[in-house]
């Protein structure tokens, strides 16, 4: 029997496979396809202080081995989340993290404080990297000073596990990771989407209503893998890797690069049962290579 469990700070995961925010709704959307309780954790939809209608349609463009999105953090707002959605999340026997976003530091503080009170939520993922809202979001994640400021402010009010989700749209992601580590983050997750765009040559218009959007899917995997490797070498806190993971092999590559756990995002759209297949595949891999624990893979990249 192989041991798939991993730890991210004080968080105990039964296996290293989580779902990425914005790709998994609130879990319920996938209940017909998989047993949510078999996952290491889920990160539910980005939540803000007030409800947000998000950006206008069209919000999506398919690209080579991936897609662009410009959803713009459409969500019900933290109060409705607590009242209407949280009660049914409490039934899950897995880690349910809430992705928290905002336009101002006060927004982040307000939302994080309210979620701090929720017993069944063991941690938040601080989203300082959403490329699809005009103010805030990614703006906080692209400079060390602002990343530090928002992490410090939230750390003061949020007492449980604080994971900070990093933007790849920066010159040096390791510097940002170090900045949030120094400001009290318990872990970092990366990468959020890469800023991109799509044009319809026939209509001579941008495909997305916002012109630019966030690129995800297998197309971004090599970049994500490189960034996870660099960040894992640069910080002492756990790293959660994501970006184009669609198979157990992909997930294992991220673990080898130094991720303690992974998140699966866009692949859920293509195969709603992909997460369970990845968990099974990791198990098979460990058996095949006669390894006892998934922890043996973390950072085990051979560079000689």
């Amino acid at each position, binding site marked *: 029997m192989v041991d798939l469990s991993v730890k991210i700070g004080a968080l105990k995961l039964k296996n290293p496979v989580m779902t990425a925010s*914005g790709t998994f709704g609130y879990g319920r959307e996938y209940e017909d396809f998989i047993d949510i309780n078999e996952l290491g954790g889920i990160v539910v939809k980005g939540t803000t202080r007030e409800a947000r209608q998000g950006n206008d349609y069209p*919000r*999506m463009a398919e690209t080579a081995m991936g897609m662009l*999105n410009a959803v713009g953090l459409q969500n019900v707002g933290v109060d409705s989340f607590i009242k209407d959605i949280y009660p049914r999340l409490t039934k899950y026997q897995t880690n349910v993290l809430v992705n928290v976003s905002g336009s101002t530091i006060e927004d982040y503080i307000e939302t994080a404080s309210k979620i701090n009170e929720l017993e069944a939520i063991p941690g938040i993922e601080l989203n300082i990297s959403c490329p699809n809202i005009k103010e805030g979001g990614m703006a906080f994640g692209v400079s060390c000073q602002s990343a530090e400021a928002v992490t410090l402010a939230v750390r003061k009010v949020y007492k449980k596990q604080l994971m900070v989700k990093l933007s790849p749209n920066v010159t040096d992601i390791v510097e940002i990771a170090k900045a949030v580590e120094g400001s009290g983050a318990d872990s970092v997750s990366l990468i959020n989407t890469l800023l991109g765009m799509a044009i319809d040559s026939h209509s001579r218009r941008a495909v997305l209503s916002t012109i630019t959007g966030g690129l995800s899917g297998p197309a971004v995997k090599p970049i994500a893998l490189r960034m996870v490797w660099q960040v894992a070498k640069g910080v002492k806190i756990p790293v959660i890797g994501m970006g184009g993971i669609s198979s157990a092999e992909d997930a294992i590559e991220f673990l080898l690069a130094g991720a303690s756990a992974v998140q699966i995002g866009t692949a859920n*759209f*293509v195969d*709603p049962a992909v997460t369970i297949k990845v968990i099974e595949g990791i198990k098979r891999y460990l058996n095949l290579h006669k390894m006892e624990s998934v922890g043996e893979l973390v950072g085990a990249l051979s560079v000689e």
Partner: protein
Amino acid sequence: MKHIHNFTISNNERQNEEFVVLTLNCEAGELPAMVPGQFAEVRVPNEPAAYLRRPLSIHDVDYQKRQIKLLVQEVGKGTRALSALPVGSIVNLVYPLGKGYSLPESKEVLLIGGGCGVAPLLFLGRYLKSHSIEPRFLIGTRTASSLVSIDAYRELGEVMITTEDGTAGTKGYVIHHPVMRTETPDFKQIYTCGPEPMMRILAKYANKHNISCQVSLENHMACGIGACLCCVTKTQDGHKCVCTEGPVFDSKYLQW
């Protein structure tokens, strides 16, 4: 309940230059109950350019034979790859998705399809007929050669046709057909699917004549199950996912 099932293509029937009808046999056993207007997210095999699934209306269902039909219009790489699949190919479907058409309050109905929008209307016609409602179809296309085979529709009820160039049926758009131009229409319910400009005009028409109108939207979507929030349309209650709150909406609920 939504399912992920593998299907085997048992027939690939080309209709014309643009359309094929794929007949798919469910490998997993019994088909789940489906409602006309619901759709499947179809994974395109062997086509790396089509990363995401393709949402396609359920065109027809035969529960006894465990068969469903999909009408595929070749509009891009994904749909071209699907239409080229030989008999025996395996395709993976996530289905049945979304909310379909609901039964009318009045038995006088008109089913209006534009282009690929005729797809759900065959299943709908069959469904209405099984509820003792006589479906009548009004089908609009660009030109005679892009018209799908109407034999199956004709078995269920009267079929009226418009073409933009007048090569078949009445010349013009569906709204120009004589059935739409009387002072008092002889139908109380419109069911429609097709290009959005067509459906907007039909929604206005329905309002003017105090007729109920159910429209099926074709917004681009990624997941099809309400997770990605990409396919939204504006409604009286703000942005709603077409994939889960629709694709069929009462036209009055939409803010077009």
